[in-house]
């Protein structure tokens, strides 16, 4: 095979196989896979949220039944695990965002730490807002 102007012609290259279970080889890779797994928590809760709204829509009995399920140990444990994953998602997401986002004010680049701080500030505001909406 010809690669542009660089030729591949050496016959004796040793090509190591990439390990199938590569992601348990390093803590950083495990963390990466965990980060990617947060998407399961995200979709889990998206479904629960929709069911929650549907239960309200279906009337007080349906809602009561759903609330009862929410109180079951199974549901509580599922939610607890999902909660940790969601927080992990939020943190990794906000921490990595400055890498992709470059904001200019005039000719100057806004520094990563400022963007980071803005992200967390928004998170706090949204969280407080949601609490206010549902508990008052």
């Amino acid at each position, binding site marked *: 095979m010809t690669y542009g*102007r*660089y030729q591949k012609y*050496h016959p*004796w290259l040793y090509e190591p196989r990439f390990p199938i279970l590569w992601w348990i080889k390093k803590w950083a890779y495990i963390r990466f896979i965990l980060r990617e797994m947060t998407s399961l928590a995200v979709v889990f809760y998206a479904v629960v949220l929709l069911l929650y709204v549907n239960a309200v829509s279906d009337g007080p009995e349906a809602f009561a039944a759903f609330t009862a399920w929410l109180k079951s140990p199974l549901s509580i444990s599922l939610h607890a695990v999902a909660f940790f994953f969601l927080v992990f998602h939020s943190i990794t997401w906000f921490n990595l965002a400055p890498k992709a986002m470059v904001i200019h004010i005039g000719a100057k680049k806004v520094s990563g730490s400022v963007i980071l701080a803005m992200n967390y500030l928004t998170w706090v505001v949204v969280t407080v807002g949601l609490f206010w909406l549902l508990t008052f």
Partner: protein
Amino acid sequence: MPVHDVVIVGGGGAGLRAAIAVTETDPSLEVALVSKVYPMRSHTVAAEGGAAAVIKDHDSFENHIFDTISGGDWLVDQDAIELFVNEAPNELVQLEHWGCPWSREPDGKVAVRPFGGMKKERTWYAADKTGFHMLHSLFQTSLKYPGIVPYDEWFATTLLIHDGRCQGVAALEQRTGRVEVIAGRSVIICTGGAGKVYPFTTNGAIKTGDGMSMAYRAGVPLKDMEFVQYHPTGLPGTGILITEAARGEGGILVNSDGYRYLQDYNLGQPLDVSDSNHPVKKSMELGPRDRLSQAFIHEQRKGRTIKGKFGDVVYLDVRHLGEKIIDQKIPFVRELASKYAGIDPVHEPIPVRPVLHYFMGGIDTDKTGSTSLPGLYAAGEVACVSINGANRLGSNSLTELLVFGARAGRAAAQFALEQSPTELAPLRKQVVDEDERITKSYLTKEGGTERISTIRTEMRDTMEDGAGIYRSEEGLKNTCNKLAELRDRFSNISLDDRSLTYNTELISVLELDAMLDVAEAVAHSARARKESRGSHQRTDHPVRDDDSYLMHSMAYKGDGAPKIDYKDVVITRWPPGERVYGQEQAE
């Protein structure tokens, strides 16, 4: 296809610039770019401080010319330096157009900084990784020319000469071990210097003088080889360079008493570091390298240096610049000092000592880079044009790569266009012989008891002992004898590795062979020059002697010792005078 139009050996700054010059002269010309390492690994990558060229209004060509001539102790060819200084700004602008990230002034113009031995600030820089940025800009730009054919990790072993002219090289492909013809109607050697001939050097592993040796063996003389530059500020132990830019930005040198000792060596009077005129150009820490390195030896003899784990040192102090300037202007200095000397220059002074840095001498060329062998050109540190004389001024070398790289490229292109097509058969025959020589002397050889590392270490030590900063007849004689002995023992060498694939031990032995040639040329040229000039200081002949030695030495390879001859220096408008430093404030 082993037949090209121009063959360039060396993918450093000079080789890349030459390659681009060839294809730009005539895009139909095909250039083989042969390099023993991937071009971006070439040692140009390590240059830190900057490249000199006059562009600011407060400066003039005249200044740059004169600084260089006096810096080189009048051993500079004045026609060459004039042309160099004139062409320098365009070359650096060209590199700017090719993307080199030069450091800038607030208004967007290129910024300049002061360097040793320079009357005005005229050194362009890219923070303190100038060589790195220049090399990468050149290499990446070179990729856009389809006419440049890379031979990466091919090691050139000898020149192919046929019909009285140089028509290519024999080269060993490191990954397969095959020795092949790489033919062209002209050849440019750009293989850089030979710092590895000495034990303690700023140079990387690849600077082994291969190109010098190839030309030398082909009968081309090596010019001014006795002039080797010691840089005053290397890190003890490793020899890693702390750039002159550290002093250009205001760093000072002090001895064990905290005293700025340079004032005792006719280099002017120090201003306080808080003085707005500090650092004063061409004075104190901004004196030329030869004088600063020599001053260190005197301090050492007076017992005023500091004892360190790796021998005596003095301190380079940049603390007063403050963290901000250090991080902005010389971040690499901070990185290197922290990593390799374990100190943070923001808070502590940096231990330094003189270290072998640069070869002023090299393959004798004229202003177009051509040598006495038709079809053979040379440029860069490997060549001696000569614009560096007896002592190179810092930051002239990077510019030299560009100016003379381009000139050699154009001249070699022109030459190639005028020649008849290459006949491959006779060259092939020479390469078969070369292959056999290498195989027989190293790969299939029986017996042999010497190790590469033993001979290499002894060579380096004897060079430092006899051909270091201060030299004498006695010391040089010993060194010459020792080198002859090592040459003898070299024929008894034996390799552990007999394989073909990436046999790096084979490369080492070929490099050692070349280094022994270079060492011999240096020692014998030094022994013959019975005067002191620039970097060549003889304790037994302490003064400059223009009557007998205002001449370039020319070392020719002989059967035993080299033959040393001389050639006139070109003097046009600047008659030999006294080198004056530190007096500028009095003007």
